[in-house]
């Protein structure tokens, strides 16, 4: 079960129209080397699920700049002017989801839940088209699970079996996205041997990780 592959091999089966979850929050925790490889591969009509569209030059914004994204599902797009531009020009469709609902929908997708009830968004445009369910007198929206063909996650440390440790605020959406995609690709800053990682601090168990790619670097300010 050798999971350690080249970046080209890891993204080999991604094709036009694939859906990809990308970990990270404003780029922190986003696997840049996987994004860069996808830019190079020139696949298009992608559905990207990511907390935000980052800012120009970093993270998923690089895919947006190359017009490779057909649908973006995110909670925040305000710091990337290109996102707004492509939305209004009809190049890219953007589905805005409250951040907590986005996280929970991804978790539900990975955890085999058919959906969940949240007060978030009641009485707002987020409610449109959704079932409103009353439980014990309170109104909730029924939100459905999200899953994807691929997940790009960014490990601070990974062992060769695929157990992942995320440092500080790089964890964010990476843990849950790793559970909600058919194929999970982890780019890592550091690779260690099996047995070197304390099993108590593993944040994504190896069973979720399909491919490991080395060479992710700390972000350069």
């Amino acid at each position, binding site marked *: 079960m050798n999971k350690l592959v080249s970046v080209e091999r890891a993204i080999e089966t991604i094709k036009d129209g694939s859906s990809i979850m990308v970990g990270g929050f404003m780029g922190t925790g986003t696997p840049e080397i996987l994004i860069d490889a996808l830019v190079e591969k020139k696949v298009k009509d992608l559905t990207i699920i990511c907390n935000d569209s980052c800012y120009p030059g970093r993270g998923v914004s690089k895919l947006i700049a190359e017009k490779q994204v057909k649908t973006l599902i995110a909670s925040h797009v305000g710091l990337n002017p290109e996102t707004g531009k492509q939305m209004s020009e009809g190049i890219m469709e953007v589905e805005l989801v409250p951040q907590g609902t986005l996280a929970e929908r991804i978790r539900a997708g990975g955890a085999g839940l058919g959906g969940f009830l949240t007060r978030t968004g009641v009485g707002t445009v*987020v409610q449109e088209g959704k079932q409103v369910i009353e439980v014990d007198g309170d109104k909730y929206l029924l939100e459905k699970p999200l899953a994807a063909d691929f997940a790009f996650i960014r490990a601070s440390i990974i062992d060769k079996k695929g157990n992942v440790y995320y440092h500080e605020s790089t964890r964010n959406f990476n843990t849950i996205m790793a559970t909600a995609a058919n194929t999970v690709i982890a780019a890592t800053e550091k690779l260690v041997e099996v047995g070197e990682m304390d099993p108590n601090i593993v944040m994504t168990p190896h069973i979720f990780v399909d491919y490991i790619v080395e060479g992710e670097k700390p972000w350069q300010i």
Partner: protein
Amino acid sequence: MADIKHFIAKRVAKELKDGDVVNLGIGLPTLVADYIPSDYDVTFQSENGFVGIGPAPEKGKEDVDLINAGAQYVSVKPGSAFFDSAVSFGIIRGGHVDATVLGALQVDEEGNLANWIIPGVMVPGMGGAMDLVSGAKKVIIAMQHTNKGKHKILKKCTLPLTAEKEVDLIVTEMGVIEVTNEGLVLKEINSEYTVEEVVSATEAHLIISDDLKPMEG
């Protein structure tokens, strides 16, 4: 202007209690952290995944793995804890945040809030605001009373809502307004303004508290 913002932030800080867990929105609300009494143990949450936000690092000493929800490099205090986005919003939605302080585009008599979109003009997305406003025990709006003379405290919000009837308190440079079942109650007023000036800067009906006090930053 900077003075106004600090005045508002200082007043908001008085709403926080020792032991509170607080989430501060970006912009003006982040200034609130500077005015917490030093003997208070207030924990600031960053919705991207930790509690215990510390001061910004010196330039050149940034830790690239550590940003706040506004994408700024920060530090953590001793006793902090990191977690993922699902846990983070469990904290927010589950009522474990005692107070959230946010800016607003509009807020109205019913405590409705609009702060995430101006259709056709600005579509940044709601980020974590909808969850925060629905989930936090106390929702405090910290903002300038008007936007270049245009009313922001309205009878009814005209922009798409962030959440329905969740706002508890509005703190502006003019005064402190509580959202009650009876409507908006002016509880404190900045001595630089008259009641008439505040009323005129407010589209919503303002009930003037019988016990109107001077607002202190």
